[in-house]
């Protein structure tokens, strides 16, 4: 076959050009450290990188959510612990005051201390967090108080969501929404990406608001609230105030103020409240544990995602450098060949 003089020139130049392009390519990948710098480098990998990035970043957000939820739950836990301390002191006093060695004056004096405990418990039950939200008003976080003075029964307190919180048209309507605490914080991927109304939550989320009625209620309370413990006989209030621990303490105080020994019912109700609060505290602890467990799981998951992303996206340096050297050598050879071939011409030998 004939060979034209231009051909060898083209070929040499083509080779040089090819190697230069390859070097440019490796150079970019090496200097960015990434194998995929633009969609065309590996379109499928691009798609995977996008979804991996999304998962990794979303997991980070879930971690932040978990931290936030935890800080809320710690506040709730602290508030409940404070209440437990108060009730325990009140219970000790109740047992003490049952003793006949204490007279009416002693009891009246103790009523003053109970008054302080009532203030403390009432305060924690109306606890407000840094955002100005009530901790124990369910989702009605914006109410002034979670436990309002009972308009039907002066001196007692009613939860904002309870029927006792209102009387007739003169006072505000019952805040039924306070009976639901539907604030759930997402701490993991959700199967259906949907949170339903109805205060049920789902497994990917943790509840951070509670309604005070549930927390501070005395389950199966036996105390009967009366208008005047000193009365003969005392008349039961109608309607009865909410059976919450605050009202039990108020009843206890009223009994003491009347100079009477507290009934057994009061002590057992305080016991029941303590059990209830301890249960709630355990439940809150459980939620915190869930957050921790979810965090650990998230970390492991994230690690494997990162690793996968690295495999897809990152440049293998060793391979990259050897490819670079390879192309550099090839380029040098091509350049030398070019000068060699261009030097050989028959014209050099004529004359």
């Amino acid at each position, binding site marked *: *076959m*004939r*060979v*034209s*003089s*231009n*051909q060898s020139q*083209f070929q040499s130049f*083509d080779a040089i050009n090819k190697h230069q392009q390859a070097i440019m390519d490796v150079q970019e990948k090496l200097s960015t450290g990434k194998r995929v710098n*633009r*969609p*065309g*480098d*590996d*379109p499928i990998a*691009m*798609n995977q990188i*996008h*979804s991996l*990035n*999304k998962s990794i*970043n*979303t997991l980070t*957000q879930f971690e*932040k*959510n978990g931290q*936030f*939820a935890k800080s809320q739950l710690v506040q709730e836990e602290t508030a409940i612990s404070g209440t437990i301390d108060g009730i325990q002191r009140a219970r000790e006093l109740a047992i003490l005051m049952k003793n006949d060695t204490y007279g009416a004056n002693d009891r009246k004096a103790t009523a003053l201390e109970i008054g302080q405990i009532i203030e403390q418990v009432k305060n924690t039950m109306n606890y407000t967090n840094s955002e*100005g*939200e009530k901790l124990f*008003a*369910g*989702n*009605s*976080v*914006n109410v002034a108080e979670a436990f309002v003075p009972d308009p039907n029964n002066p001196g007692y307190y009613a939860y904002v969501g309870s029927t006792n919180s209102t009387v007739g048209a003169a006072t505000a309507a019952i*805040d*039924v*929404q*306070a*009976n*639901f605490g*539907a*604030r*759930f*914080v*997402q701490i993991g*991927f*959700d199967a259906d*990406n949907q*949170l*339903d*109304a*109805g*205060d049920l939550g789902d497994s990917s989320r943790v509840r*951070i608001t509670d309604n005070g009625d549930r927390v501070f209620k005395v389950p199966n309370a036996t105390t009967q609230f009366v208008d005047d413990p000193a009365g003969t006989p005392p008349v039961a209030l109608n309607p009865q105030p909410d059976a919450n621990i605050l009202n039990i303490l108020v009843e206890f105080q009223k009994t003491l103020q009347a100079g009477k020994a507290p009934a057994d019912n009061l002590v057992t109700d305080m016991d029941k409240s303590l059990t209830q609060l301890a249960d709630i505290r355990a439940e809150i602890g459980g939620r915190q544990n869930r957050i921790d467990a979810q965090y650990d799981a998230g970390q492991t998951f994230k690690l494997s995602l990162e690793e996968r992303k690295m495999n897809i996206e990152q440049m293998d340096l060793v391979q990259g450098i050897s490819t670079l050297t390879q192309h550099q050598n090839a380029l040098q050879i091509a350049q030398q060949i070019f000068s060699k071939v261009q030097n050989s*011409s*028959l*014209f050099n030998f*004529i004359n």
Partner: protein
Amino acid sequence: MADMLTIGTNATNTFKRALDVTSHNVANIGTEGYNRQRAEILSDAPGNASVGFHGGGSKIGTVQRMYADFIQTQLVDANSQKSRYNEQLSVAKQLEGVVAGNDAGIQDFMQRLFDSFHNLANNPTSSTSRQQVISESTNMESMLSNMSGVLGETQVQTNGQIENIVQQVNEKLTSIQAINKEVANSTNYGGQPPNDLLDQRDEAIKQFSGLMDIKTFKQPDGRIEIYTADGRYPLLNDNVRTNLSASFTDFRNEQRMEVFIDVSGKQKMISDSVQGGQLGGLLDFRKNMLDKSMNELGVALNGLVASVNWQHYQGYDLNGNPGQDFYQPLSMNAMEKATNTGAEDGTNIKVSFNPVYDPSAPVQGTNPPFDPAAVPPAANAQPATYGDKQTNFQTAMAQIGEFKAREYELTFSSALNGYEVRDYRTGEVLNDAAGNPQFISLGAPDNGVKNVEGLQFDFSAALAPTDGDQFIVKPHQEILNNFKTIIADPETLATRGQSSQDTNNDGLLTDEVPTASAYGDNVNIANIASLQSKKILYSDQNGNAAETILGGYSKMATNVGMYVSGTQIQLTAQENVFNQVNDRREAYSGVNLDEEAANLLRFQQAYQASAQIIQTSQSLFQSLLGAVRL
């Protein structure tokens, strides 16, 4: 009868010519498209001598151009393809650069938007978190408008490029026409082929093929005719030139440059006939990459706008009012064709995302955003029950899944009293889920309003069209220009969901009247945050969505990448083909300097020998004179 002197003189002439041809070859080693020439030396006609025939020396028969027609044709085709993919790759890389440059930003900002939804879900009453949602949304908006801006710019730039290339096509055509004329003249009068003129023409045609793909036919008089590659439109016929022109399509305001040819006085669009050359590459890029990317990005954005808006409608803001528009909802008009004769100019044809509302038979609660002041059964009042509200929402989400990255062409048929719906790019009639052609009847049953691929086409306010009137709609490009966060007051972010209260204690909330949940509720904003991970786009036939919103975006990015890498592979292949054909041409027609050097020596020696013949003849004559001298 030739004598020695004549033979010698002829021979020196012959070899002088041969040396000329050799020099011409050497001189043109660097000339693009030059085919080497060879002097064809013939022995001169023998004369009848008294004793047998004896030759009359040598002469140059012709100067032959070493040229193979079939190689040149292949070369022209290969060049056309090579230059197509070259151009395609260079514009595609430009767009890819835009995508790559904004990629990290878009992922980042989208993540931040949804993170801000999550933060607000954690803390729905915090005004800081509320404000953050709005700022993040505005940030993402500017990030995306940056990208869609560049895409729009690329459209304009492509228009300009098409115009430019068409102009070059016409110029090249003019010069080929001129050479053609000269070739015909030379062939008619000279008898000998005008080698260098032919080279020039071949080179001009090759360059022309770099602009667009063509077919050439040689005529007996040496002229060449040029047709478009599919052979349908003559560009140079009987040496009469048909100019191409670049102008906007017939659809007003579409501002899309296409290539037209003048066929017996009528402008005919031939963009689809151009498959090669720079023009072919550019048109392919626009069709399969630019338009596609814009429409796919638009689907992702339309999905984001519609899903966030509809989820937002489901909830209630801090004041207990129903959620309003978060993003500006899609609402656009059609573009009319300039040749339409009906009264409707497209501005009364409305296309929007309105999945459950039928204006001709309004149903309570089907036309959100809900107005708290609206009196049932107004369509923009809350639905009768929470269950209805949820059902409508599910329908809306399902409709989002129907979005296709498409542009629509609507053609009015007076016989059927309605509009046919076609894909504007391919011209195919679209089918509904049942496989029947999509058709929007102006009378019953549609009354001029129908949902097609998730979008509501509303002709109820349109003026009378005439048969064959056409309109086009590009809903997914529209959203690129009108993607806007319109919620401004942080208080109006609908974080709260449906009340958890079950008034009739039947264990179901679906029969409740839609009511706001408490102030601190986060159900609705948690659901908006969840839209990030929810697959809502590109449903299959069973209604299972395949992509998340970010997935919709990465689908676009992936397709951009595929197009670039596909083009790259094509280019490499076509370059190889071109090189191979070029090698063949070079092997046959290229100049080899060593060969010319050898020829130079050969003809020089022959010339010297011929000169010696003259010398000898001279000395013979001298001898004769000397013999008779006294």
